[in-house]
């Protein structure tokens, strides 16, 4: 498809270009079309990209490509975003002149835990082979046999189980490689695309979330040369199914006798539990999966309640040297910016044990937990039971929500707007792709209302207002607004306090 016509200007005996009747240089065209991707541009070079010759050549190539290609667009998941389909529309014939038997190849081959291969659809472009070799550094794919019988396959005894395997599905121009997670779930033309980024580690790969009717069907990487080029890991890509999990919390819960209550009743209950305590009696655990706006409001609430102990739950893994960061929290940087990680001199999570001790000794009587499971933070169930007040926000039920006096259901990363700062100090923006279920609300709204009932009224109506207040209060965000972040994010690393 990259065929073009090329030529150089004719030169006369006096070494000056020959001009035609219109005064333009006469070109000596190379009689055969050339492959554009294999040509270097040179001075004086003449190129025709859409000449009859180039078009004819493309038509010929198209006919050859379609000789063995099955006519199963109706069932092929690539239909709608298939390069071959697009070129077929432009250069293909309505009928086929091929009268022989089509070459049969393996279909529906499971070549990895997340990828299925249909060899008949493969046009042998070798993109996937090169990707696995050069980017994922895991050389498992290759061609066997020759000519029409060339077949893509995995090396004997291996399978395509790299954490980057699903990128081969993205770069496959046809439907040969398909994602087992997305396979046959939804046609791509139904998907509404929302620009977002992955919140599964501190890298923050830019993504597109594909949604139909409030259900997320897939997440694909979005090109951002400063963050992830156009790749992302399978772990982050598939880390969205919990958003549509049936066990999602959809209404505030009130205890001791557990019952679902209205949002306003939950706020009233939280006021009774949180206000009128002496400083030091309350501790707070925030999540580094919260957005900057939420963390900013959490820091306001912390001041308001006189909370001294506050920290995040650290999540450490190992970096894989490609994209995945060792820090699996997407916004630990933001938590540090707002001073919610103890202090800058301490590692994040270092004060968590103080919280555990305080709760154990009974010094801490009230605990606020935003977006984390207190049991996973090291607090024992008995100690949590002894608390006078445990107020939580959570997406999913966990050990803490079984005990908390008030639980607010909150929104997942694809259900809210806001910003986060990745591990390299890049400010990026989340957009809302789906609506939160039931009475679940944005965490910033819950935090605003908690601040409101605890006496710190500020009348914030929109996430833009929150960002404006945040930018006024914190020099890191000076002069910024949510819209100024843009789709590709902004580098704030020089403004951040040294980490």
């Amino acid at each position, binding site marked *: 498809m990259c065929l073009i016509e090329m030529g150089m200007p004719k030169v006369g005996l006096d070494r000056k270009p020959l001009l035609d009747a219109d005064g333009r240089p006469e070109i000596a065209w190379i009689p055969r079309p050339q492959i554009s991707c294999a040509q270097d541009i040179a001075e004086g070079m003449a190129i025709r990209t859409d000449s009859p010759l180039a078009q004819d050549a493309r038509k010929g190539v198209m006919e050859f490509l379609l000789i063995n290609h099955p*006519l*199963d667009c*109706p*069932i092929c998941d690539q239909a709608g975003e298939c390069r071959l389909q697009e070129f077929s529309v432009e250069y293909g014939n309505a009928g086929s002149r091929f009268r022989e038997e089509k070459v*049969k190849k393996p*279909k529906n081959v499971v070549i990895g835990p997340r990828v299925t291969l249909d060899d008949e659809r493969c046009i042998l472009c070798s993109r996937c082979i090169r990707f696995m070799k050069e980017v994922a550094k895991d050389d498992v794919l290759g061609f066997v046999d020759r000519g029409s019988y060339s077949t893509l396959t995995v090396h004997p005894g291996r399978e395509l189980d790299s954490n980057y395997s699903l990128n081969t599905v993205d770069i496959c121009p046809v439907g040969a490689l398909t994602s087992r997670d997305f396979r*046959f779930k939804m*046609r791509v*033309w139904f998907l509404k695309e929302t620009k977002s980024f992955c919140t599964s580690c501190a890298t923050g790969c830019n993504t597109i979330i594909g949604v139909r009717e409030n259900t997320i069907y897939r997440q694909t990487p979005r090109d951002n040369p400063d963050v992830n080029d156009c790749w992302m890991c399978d772990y982050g890509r598939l880390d969205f199914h919990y958003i549509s999990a049936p066990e999602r919390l959809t209404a505030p819960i009130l205890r001791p006798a557990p019952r679902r209550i209205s949002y306003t009743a939950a706020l009233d209950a939280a006021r009774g539990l949180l206000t009128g305590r002496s400083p030091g009696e309350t501790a707070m655990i925030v999540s580094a999966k919260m957005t900057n706006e939420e963390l900013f409001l959490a820091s306001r609430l912390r001041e308001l309640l006189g909370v001294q102990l506050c920290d995040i739950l650290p999540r450490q893994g190992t970096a894989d040297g490609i994209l995945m960061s060792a820090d699996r929290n997407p916004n630990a940087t933001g938590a540090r910016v707002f001073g919610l990680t103890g202090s800058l001199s301490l590692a994040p999570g270092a004060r968590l044990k103080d919280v555990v001790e305080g709760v154990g000794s009974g010094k801490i009587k009230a605990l606020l937990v935003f977006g984390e499971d207190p049991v996973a933070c090291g607090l024992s169930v008995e100690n949590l039971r002894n608390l006078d007040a445990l107020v939580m926000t959570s997406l999913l039920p966990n050990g803490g929500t079984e005990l908390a006096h008030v639980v607010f259901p909150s929104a997942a990363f694809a259900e809210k707007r806001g910003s986060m700062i990745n591990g390299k100090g890049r400010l990026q923006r989340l957009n809302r792709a789906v609506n939160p279920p039931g009475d679940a609300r944005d965490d910033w709204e819950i935090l605003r209302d908690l601040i409101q009932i605890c006496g710190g009224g500020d009348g914030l109506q929109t996430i833009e207002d929150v960002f404006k207040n945040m930018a006024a209060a914190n020099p890191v965000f000076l002069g910024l607004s949510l819209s100024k972040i843009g789709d590709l994010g902004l580098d704030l690393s020089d403004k951040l306090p040294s980490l």
Partner: protein
Amino acid sequence: MAYTVARPKLTFAEKIYLPAIVAGLAITWKHLINTLTGRKKVTMQYPEEKWDANLPEHYRGAPTLVKDEHGRERCVACQLCEFICPPRAIRIKPGELPRESKWAKVEKYPEEFDIDMIRCIYCGLCEEVCPEQAIFLRKDYAITGLSREEMVHNKAKLYELGGVRTGLVHKWNEKK
């Protein structure tokens, strides 16, 4: 830009309306008498008299799904009809055929296929767009029900209405 429309010059007879009124009354009187004496009969007394025998081949009644003479359900859940449907009456949940199925090569089939006949406008675009000759508009036009749920034709109902259709292209049958 505003411009003046030339008004027709009316004759005196036209100005006093009366001749026109009388002519109009004469026309309506003629229709009245023709209808009352039964000289002109347009209406068909529907539930008793029906036109079913005269329905043309291209009549667009209720959309249905068909099986072919091999008993294969022709729909492969490509969802093009769902996409084209102007009132969004079609709802498909695609599924994957099990490997041991006789037609495993087809890979995909509709797990659920609902057409909301309250929404359907009988436009026939679903039939036109179907790449598998799986959906056809048949001659059923009296689609009734006592609840909204009843008016949603599910897969079983659609196959019941559609039945078997022969003489279609069998692109999945050749050994590929």
